[in-house]
């Protein structure tokens, strides 16, 4: 009985991995890094995790979770509540619909897909914020953030691949 319970708990923990990693990436994306001015261009780690799981395990990371993580992201980054939620769900839906193409046969295809996704999402975020606040936010830092996100994408992606292989393949 106890063994069965442990087995169920273990299985539950493994299945919760996508949600847990997106949550962890969201929190990691908000903390202060010991690099001067890094916060101004800190890459959107949460979006990377949303992108990864929308391709690889959309059955374990559904739009509802993208919505909740988006709300947390809004609260932490002092953005209008609902903005990241809207963009994360839209990004999830876009990636889900194109996942066979983005997953492809090489990592470069997935990287290219992320570049496209992050550019669209960040431009949409910039446009919506301009409209909501009725002011022009400088576009260059937004572009730099997107660029940095594209450059460092393989690193968080490698972590997610390792986690998926360790926890989900074994389950």
């Amino acid at each position, binding site marked *: 009985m106890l063994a069965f319970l442990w087995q169920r708990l273990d299985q539950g923990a493994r299945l919760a991995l996508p949600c847990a990693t997106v949550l962890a990436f969201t*929190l*990691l994306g*908000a*903390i*202060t*890094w*010991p690099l*001067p*001015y890094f*916060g*101004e*261009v*800190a890459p959107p780690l949460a979006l990377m995790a949303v992108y990864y799981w929308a*391709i*690889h*395990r*959309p*059955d374990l990371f*559904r*739009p*509802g979770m993208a*919505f909740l993580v988006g*709300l*947390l992201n*809004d*609260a*932490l*980054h*002092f953005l*209008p*509540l*609902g*903005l990241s*939620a*809207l963009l994360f*769900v*839209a990004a*999830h*839906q876009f990636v*889900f619909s194109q*996942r*066979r193409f983005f*997953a492809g046969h090489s*990592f470069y295809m997935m990287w290219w897909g992320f570049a496209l996704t992050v550019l669209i999402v960040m431009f949409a*975020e*910039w446009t919506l*914020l301009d409209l*909501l*606040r009725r*002011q022009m*936010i*400088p576009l260059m*830092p*937004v572009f*730099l*953030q997107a660029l940095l996100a594209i450059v460092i994408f393989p690193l968080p992606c490698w972590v997610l*691949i390792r986690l*998926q292989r360790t926890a*989900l*393949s074994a389950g």
Partner: protein
Amino acid sequence: MTVLPRSTGWSSIVALPWRSLNQRFSAFVFMMAALGLLILGRIQPSLIEDTRAHVVDGAMPILDAIAWPMTAAENAAARVKSYMSLQEENQRLRADNAQLVQWQNALTALQDENRELRTLLNFQTEPGLAYISARVIADTGGPFVRGLLITAGKLDGVREGMAAMTGDGLIGRVVEAGDWSSRVLLITDLNSRIPVTIAGSGDRAILAGDNSNELKLFYLPQDAMLNPGARVVTSGHGGVFPPGLPVGVVTVAERGVYGVTPAADLGRVNYVRLVDFSLKGGAFNPLQTGIEAANKPN
């Protein structure tokens, strides 16, 4: 690497479109909910602000735990660096100390003279300032907002509108206070506007942020001629900030607009000091009394 669900036969013909339809429908519902929240935020901003403050309060212990190793590593690196330059720093501090003793003597004489003159004029002094120190836990800047999350909230006496400083100067003000966390909007944020005075000339202006690391001076008098390097301090107008807090120094004018470099290094803020400037007293009186008692000569 890719694990895509595969199924065959009649079940896949029925199940796949249904699952896709279900996914699309739920995505649509959540997108509508997010839009609803955005609209609600425009109609009832106070409701959204309270919710946001509670969410941040809830996330604070986890953020604190995640940030701890990084803070510890940074402190250790700073300590090693400090040990390496110990001799050099010791010499510099001795020179600084000698200069400060001279300043202290001059200050004591001026303080006595000031007190006597104030007594003669029957001058009403402004209430003293009280401070709350807090650690920066999250840099929630990004390209859209310049802000920090700090580990002090309403339970510590923090109120919205309080000035936030480092040892070098003003860095922003509290715009959101939860129970045990608060958010500081930096002076470089696009929405930051601070009434300031140029030390020396006494010219008044409004200091505005534009999400870059340089601030801009607006509404200066037409005939104002500022020298690069002139100190910019808060004017205290509007009662938002106490007067005389150092903000930065004037740089060269571009297209008729003077720039200001912040006195504090906004890229490396680990601790902040919140300044209470309560003209009517209030929540900070006990603290203020404590500070006044501590400053009182024996």
